[in-house]
């Protein structure tokens, strides 16, 4: 199963990278070469990608990722950059490292949430502890020293991460 997952991912990447060789489409020779190379890559890396990677082949999940990236994540990045601009110009900071309890199940969800937190307003993930279900976050302007949930730090990102990484 993980062989199929790696194969499809690397073949899609190959198609995207080589588009436009015959008009706007692909030439047959290129498609054949892509099949061979994707097969080799899938054989060599199928043990690395993990057991349940095939669940990300679900098209409904891709739509979810695109909506998440264009909507909440991009808007969060806009706010983050205006926030950083304000702090660079005025120099008004009140930093600290806080512990944020989160309620997630697997590593993919932790990855999505901590990457989103790093890219959005005034927060930077320092350490993720799946054992104690917590993230340690460097917050540039601490307003709440012991947050009960990730709502103050990340807004709706925890909900999105739980849904997308399932």
């Amino acid at each position: 199963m993980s062989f199929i997952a790696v194969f499809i991912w690397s073949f899609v990447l190959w198609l995207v990278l080589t588009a436009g060789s015959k008009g706007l489409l692909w030439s047959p020779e290129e498609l054949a070469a892509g099949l061979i190379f994707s097969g080799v890559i899938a054989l060599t890396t199928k043990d690395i990608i993990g057991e349940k990677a095939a669940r990300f082949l679900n098209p409904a999940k891709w739509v979810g990722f695109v909506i998440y990236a264009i909507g909440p994540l991009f808007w969060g990045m806009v706010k983050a950059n205006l926030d950083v601009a304000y702090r660079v110009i005025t120099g008004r900071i009140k930093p600290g490292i806080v512990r944020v309890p989160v309620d997630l199940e697997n590593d993919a969800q932790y990855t999505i949430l901590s990457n989103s937190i790093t890219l959005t307003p005034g927060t930077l993930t320092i350490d993720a502890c799946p054992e104690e279900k917590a993230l340690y976050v460097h917050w540039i302007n601490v307003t709440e020293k012991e947050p009960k949930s990730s709502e103050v730090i990340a807004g709706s990102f925890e909900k999105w991460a739980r849904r997308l990484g399932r």
Partner: protein
Amino acid sequence: MIEWLIGIFLAIGVIFNLLASIGLLRFPDVYTRIHAATKCTTFGTIFIVLATVTYAIYSYFWVEKDPSWITIGIHSALVVIFLVLTNPVGAHALGRAARKSGILPYGAVIDELEGRL
């Protein structure tokens, strides 16, 4: 018309990249500097690449039907995806390594990682 759009994208990108470098000079310690460097460079570079993609699409449809324009556009768009995926991970690794080697956050009001890493 299209020149204005590309110009606006480039201006936003360059301003935020400049802001990241000013942040590197102005902020007091490694963590706040990582804040400035990660967020602003990712955002600024996204807009610079967006300008490239706009230019490539415009050139393909209105100037010259050459597929290499589409290739340029797609390859630039891929840069955005890889940048957004890898940049926060690099920042996380830098921050964790700094905390692990005992650098305290400057002027911290709270430090929950004290004696944990």
